[in-house]
């Protein structure tokens, strides 16, 4: 099931940042330019969607 709610997405990012396990996966849908939370094992995503979790999991450099 897709979830585009900003608060849910921010909570997901926070969970990842804190190294907590999550059953969701964050993807970017280029058609709508939205970030979308989906079940990690969900099939049938649009072929254009890209996983947004990995780039965020890589971390951000500062400073």
């Amino acid at each position, binding site marked *: 099931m897709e979830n*585009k709610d900003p608060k849910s997405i921010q909570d997901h*990012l926070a969970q990842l940042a804190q190294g907590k396990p999550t059953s969701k996966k*964050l993807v970017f849908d*280029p058609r709508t330019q939205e970030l979308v939370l989906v079940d990690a094992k969900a099939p049938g995503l649009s072929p254009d969607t890209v996983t947004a979790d990995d780039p965020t999991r890589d*971390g951000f450099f500062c*400073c």
Partner: protein
Amino acid sequence: MGWTSQQSARLRLEMEILSRYFPSFVLKDSIIPGRAVVEGTMRSNAGHEYLVRLRVPADLPNSVPIVEIVSPVLRDRFGHPLVDLGTSYPMHLLKPENDVVRICHYSASHWSPNITFSKVLLKVRAWIEAYEGHLDSGFTIDHYLPHMEA
């Protein structure tokens, strides 16, 4: 001196990828290395728009591109302009120039020439969502986006 043929090919490839993933982004001032920028609008899931500028490095693809949020003027939860923070570790900000916020995304030591503008912009897209989380919650952006390992 202009772009080398390899750099021109890389720029074409970058724009081809962006046309698929971030189609609002266009290349400007592309003739002169060091002045070229890729600019476009990102919209958060809450519907707020941000004008984002990626400065194409003159030594493309060997350096980390600078990414700026040109508009709106970004403020923290308390109304203070983010540029006033200068370099900010918890907010993932580099030292601003010309009163424009610069996002820290990759370090030079983590940069690889095979990283595309599209991947950089995907990180910026996540930064924007985290920024709006900061506005709602007061948590700094590194609450949502971790730091790179040294």
